[in-house]
């Protein structure tokens, strides 16, 4: 069965997915057999390919009506961005010492730190080799996204170390970690279609907005979602001491959280988060980002692709209702 998120995208775009997968696997090829095998593993691990789909949909939404889009170069751009995403995940797993990724052993767990470093580097290199064939602006957006990924990673670490409860830190971490590649996907899609600066700005802003909404809703689901449904244990942010959206709203109302976090206390904290309206405030926060995304898409010329972008934003909000 097609995933509801994939089902939102127009068939003209989802039918490109097999070709995208083929090109991705080709980018994992190497003269060194072991490197090829290690690199192709994370590329074959699947995922919904949201970033490539967003890039291709933004490309279609920005394309002048009445002309047949040239998907070939747009597909290369989508592959380059997905390579950046995959490389960043491989390096993330080293930093987080994560053993699992998309339900499989991470490269770090399966082959060790040495291999994971190499694979990440290799995929980044492949991404930029491909991006070098794209228009200069698309290359610049890709490079800027990588810069911000690094900055975001370091900022997140600083926030964790200092226990910062500043909302500006929370927003900046999301902007540079979760939202940055969605922003880049939409911007590159528009650039590849030679869209006007206003359209590029609208679409890149759309990507940023849904990235923020997605992360805030993820924070809400960490409090309210059922582990069986979300596939993640509840209260992980609480136990890890992460000041995610509901906890920030809770503290902004003058409430305090215990210094020592025990998973056994989570049901009581969860009740307080609901009773104080902190969870509802987080839902409103995500809604506000989604409203921003919808306003940007509504300003585009009507098309099946633009409608798909609006439907995606609305569908993401449904997750936490």
């Amino acid at each position, binding site marked *: 069965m097609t995933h509801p998120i994939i089902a939102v995208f127009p068939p003209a775009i989802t039918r490109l997915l097999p070709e995208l997968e083929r090109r991705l696997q080709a980018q994992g090829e190497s003269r060194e057999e072991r490197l090829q095998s290690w690199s192709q593993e994370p590329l074959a691990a699947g995922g919904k390919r949201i970033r490539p789909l967003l890039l291709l949909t933004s490309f279609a939404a920005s394309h002048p009506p009445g002309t047949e889009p040239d998907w070939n170069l747009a597909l290369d751009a989508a592959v380059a961005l997905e390579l950046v995403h995959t490389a960043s995940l491989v390096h993330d797993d080293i930093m987080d010492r994560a053993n699992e990724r998309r339900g499989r052993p991470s490269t770090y767990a399966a082959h060790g730190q040495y291999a994971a470093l190499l694979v990440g580097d290799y995929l980044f290199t492949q991404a930029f080799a491909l991006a070098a064939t794209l228009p200069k602006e698309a290359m610049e957006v890709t490079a800027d996204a990588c810069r911000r990924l690094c900055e975001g990673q370091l900022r997140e670490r600083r926030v964790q170390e200092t226990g910062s409860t500043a909302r500006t830190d929370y*927003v900046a971490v999301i902007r540079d970690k979760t939202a940055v590649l969605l922003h880049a996907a939409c911007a590159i899609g528009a650039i590849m279609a030679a869209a006007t600066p206003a359209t590029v700005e609208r679409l890149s802003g759309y990507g940023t*907005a849904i990235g923020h909404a997605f992360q805030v809703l993820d924070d809400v689901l960490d409090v*309210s979602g*059922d582990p*069986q*449904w979300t596939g993640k244990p509840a209260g992980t942010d609480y136990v890890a001491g992460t000041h995610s959206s509901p906890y920030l709203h809770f503290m902004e*109302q003058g409430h305090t959280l215990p210094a020592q976090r025990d998973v056994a206390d989570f049901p009581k904290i*969860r*009740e307080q988060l*609901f*009773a104080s*309206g902190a*969870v*509802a*405030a987080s*839902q*409103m*926060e*995500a*809604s*506000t*980002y*989604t*409203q*921003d995304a*919808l*306003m940007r898409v*509504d*300003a585009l010329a009507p098309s099946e692709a633009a409608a798909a972008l609006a439907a995606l*934003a*609305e569908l993401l*909000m*449904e997750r936490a*209702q």
Partner: protein
Amino acid sequence: MGQVRAILWQHLHRVHPEAPPCPATDPNDLLEAADLAAALPSDENAQRQLGAEYARLWARTFKTLVRHLRGRPDQTLRVITSDVLPYLRNDRLAARADRAEHGWRLVIDPGLPLAYVAGITTGILEATGARATATVDGQELHVVVRLMPRERIVAWVRAAAQLRLPLLVTSFLAAAVGLAVAHADISVWQITAVLLGTLAAQSAANASHDLRRRPDPHPFHAQQLGRPWLWFQATGSYGLAGLCLSYLAARHPIAIVFAVVGVAISASYAAARDRGLGPVVAGITHGPLIVWGAAAAVGSSALLATPGPAMLLAVPTGATAAALVLLDDLSDRPLDEAAGRRTLVVRLAPDRSIRLFQTTLLTGWVGLAVWVAIAGGPLWLLATTALLALTVGAIVGRHADDPGRLSAARLLLFSTYALSATTLILSLA
């Protein structure tokens, strides 16, 4: 004069490009309310239209919630005053809704033109299918809501469910099935004591449950009756149930066993529901407990000595009652989820909840069919029950996220229960 979220200004600029651009880029940033007020159009009608248009944008991001607020103007207003306006103004006390004659009185924090807030309020109410007017009166809004016919039916069904009328009727019918087992040997007084006692026990259990439940601070939660009334209902109903039990137990002491089990189940219902066991408890109560209890209370213990028929007799009412609870929970899923209540439906993914509902419903009908095949009974009633059950299953399968259609399914399922009980009674007669 307070603050506002930047999204309102961004929306203003989108609708009226001639208005000054929003000074913030992040839509959740906070700005001075007075600055936005100065940027808004000066005409009150334009302010109302702008507010209503913003409400439509808001509603696109809360589609499921908006669907579940259909026919619930009280709760919609509480969402507006407890969640929407406080968030937009970054002030928990930004708005308050009080009941007033012919509507509601909304006390609004100063800072934004009231016509604009009135537009947001009526816009959200209209997104839920109501027709609303909001008149500015000083620093207050007087809101009058008129429900459309479809929403009115939804509201009636919900009100009946809130007063637990279906539960009272289903208990009554289950007890009647139990009495039918011993139809020839019992007096009118015994029949009255069993039926009245069951009704009173169910009413007492409902009131005790509501009394024990902590008031839910979340506005998505349905309002409940006042505590004095609940105390009166609980004590009065337990008293009446006790009187009926005394009369029945004097002749058949086994009735006490069923009464004790019933009280224990009632006491543990809230905890069981929070663990996702609400439908199981409803099934046990309306199946074995009431059906066997009613039969035993009038001396038909012979039924309990033959496990096969006894079990079979409890399946149709028990499974259909469990399906009724599942359907209620399906209808309330987003609201329960938002309020942090972890019913079985909240715990399961939506498609699994639907399959569970349909399986439970099918179990009830198959139980009834097997009973009719063994004990005889009106086939036309069995066929009608099948038709109703199929319709309910199809509605829930296709429209589980549409509370309006689920209300229709509730009515049909209730009829399915009543027909199943009638079929059993006629087969025993």
